[in-house]
């Protein structure tokens, strides 16, 4: 087990290193693009360009350029955004993360509960008209572009039906920190939570239903039934538990991807100033330093969560522990 953890950790560190190199190459070594000009944002003046070249040691050998960049991102953390009046980007990423975490945690809670409900309902109602009906609705949820659903939700809740009792409680778009006003925080996040979770409810519900049906024919489920255990207990103790394996492993990956920037579209549509919103602002302003910071920190988060999930898995289930 210890060797497994060490190997996995070494691999994680290696992947992180490669990721930083890849991001560096994309931003600094794209053929035919002057990195100083690219980093400076729209319409830079020659003074800024010279400043950038000096600060980042551009024009020096590759490893030194790379080293200076990494030092500015991870150690001194004083990489600044040139198109945004010298804001320190790493601090900005960390300042934006509570909004993203609020959004993703709430949506994750919603989608886990509802996806389990949908999956179980569809599996129990198999053979009736409701099972295919639920699955079609789930598929519609999977097929709808999330930013479009968000726009429609805004249109209804902020526009046409805002004055009716249904949506009069919805605050204007934006994010209020929990510490500032918990009630407003909650009110402002309800619709974004629902919007973000629709896709995952549909997808996880379908996965769970398929797994439930697959497990239903296993010997141990038949044994449980033969023992005379009630159907409910068979479902909760025997079928559901095994079916949750795929569900849980997918959940780890999707959750990490959402925190690392996958919630971007939802954040943009609802004006939630999280990491995704920051990324979007950076790309509309062609603010590459910020983009670099959000990408590297996002990718690191994903790699770390994957490593934790793998180790946790190996700890729980010795069969998948490779040497």
């Amino acid at each position, binding site marked *: 087990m210890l060797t497994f953890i060490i190997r996995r950790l070494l691999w994680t560190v290696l992947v992180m290193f*490669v990721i930083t190199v890849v991001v560096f190459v994309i931003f600094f070594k794209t053929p035919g693009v002057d990195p100083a000009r690219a980093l400076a944002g729209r319409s830079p003046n020659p003074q800024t360009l010279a400043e950038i070249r000096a600060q980042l040691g551009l024009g020096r050998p590759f490893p030194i350029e790379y080293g200076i960049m990494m030092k500015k991102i991870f150690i001194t953390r004083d990489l600044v955004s040139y198109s945004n009046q010298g804001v320190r980007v790493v601090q900005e990423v960390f300042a934006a993360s509570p909004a993203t975490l609020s959004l993703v945690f709430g949506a994750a809670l919603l989608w886990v509960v509802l996806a389990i409900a949908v999956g179980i309902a569809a599996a129990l109602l198999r053979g009736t008209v409701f099972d295919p009906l639920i699955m079609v609705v789930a598929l519609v949820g999977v097929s709808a572009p999330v930013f479009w659903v968000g726009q429609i939700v805004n249109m209804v809740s902020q526009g046409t039906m805002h004055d009716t009792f249904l949506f009069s409680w919805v605050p204007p778009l934006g994010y209020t920190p929990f510490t500032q006003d918990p009630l407003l925080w909650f009110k402002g996040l309800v619709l974004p939570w629902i919007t973000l979770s629709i896709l995952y409810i549909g997808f996880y519900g379908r996965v769970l239903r398929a797994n439930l049906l697959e497990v239903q024919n296993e010997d141990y489920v038949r044994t449980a039934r033969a023992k005379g255990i009630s159907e409910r207990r068979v479902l909760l103790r025997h079928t559901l538990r095994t079916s949750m394996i795929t569900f849980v492993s997918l959940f780890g990956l999707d959750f990490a991807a959402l925190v690392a920037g996958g919630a971007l579209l939802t954040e943009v549509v609802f004006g939630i100033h999280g990491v995704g919103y920051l990324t979007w602002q950076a790309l509309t302003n062609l603010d590459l330093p910020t983009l*670099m910071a959000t990408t590297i920190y996002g990718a690191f988060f994903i790699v770390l969560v994957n490593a934790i999930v793998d180790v946790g898995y190996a700890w729980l289930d010795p069969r998948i522990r490779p040497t």
Partner: protein
Amino acid sequence: MATLLEQAEVDTELRPAIAGRNPWALAARRLWHNRIAMASLVLFLLIVVLCLAAPLYAHDVAHVNPFVPNLNGHTVVNGKVVPVMQRGGGVLKLGETPIGPTWDVSHYFLGADSTGRDVAALLLYGGRSSLLIGIGSAVLCSLAATVIALIAGFFGGVTDSIASRIMDVIWAFPVFLLAICIGTELLTHTNGFQFGPVHVDPTSLWLPTVIIAFIYIPYVYRPVRGQVLSVVNKEFVEAATAQGAGNMRLIFSEILPNVVSTVIVLMPLMIATTILTESALSFLGIGVQPPNVSWGTIIQDGTDLVYTRPWVTIAPGLMILLTVLSLNVLGDGVRDALDPRAKLRVEG
């Protein structure tokens, strides 16, 4: 029991011997008999044909050029001449609001966008870009992933390790962030790029196609490589080796036919995913660039009009929804047809 047996005997006497069919014909038959899948295929083809007919609609029915802003134009509604951009519309009664849907296919069926262009015509042209990029990148991605997977799985050892590790790194990137990084970096260069002998215009549809194809390579690579690994040590490959087949023949005529079905099963789902990704990137402004339009850019354009002219937003979203939904249903059907045993399993 006896009656059943008798019945069976009668049947074998009356019926001709069962003709042998190849598995592809069997799969096609199964798909043909899957009504829901066929309906979704028809829907998808209908959308494709409609979008291909965009120039016909724009030129012969609506008589507009949807790529030219029409801020001062006029059109006829109920026999009255009205300006395309109407003054004092909207909640604040300020500024100009484009004309709303006329529900008349011959002019401004779905209204106009913020620069007075016909939304219905734009929608069809946008569909061309969206479908082209979606299908193009899915095909490109599957081709690249299959070739890498074949090489990695067939040669194994170091080749396999290197290929798989590279895929792991691409996989580790948040999908959108990787696309955003590449897209933004390329956008900083407004004069086009020189990749060796190839010159790429920054407004070219090739850019989003290649970017999207690239980021999804690992998603196709993993299942295909798994399939290659499960086939590569089978007896028929050994038999071919014994007959003196070279590596090329082994890869392309022995192994490839056995992994093609995996790729085909993934294809509709891949196109669905790439269309969604394209629309998201275009919505963010780093996908399709003006003067080209796609469903994503129309939704983006509709953002400011969402409270006054909602159809600019609703219509392209519905098109995406219908296209992706039909592809997802078709994908389920294709999977069931090619691999009936996997009926209960769900795509990853």
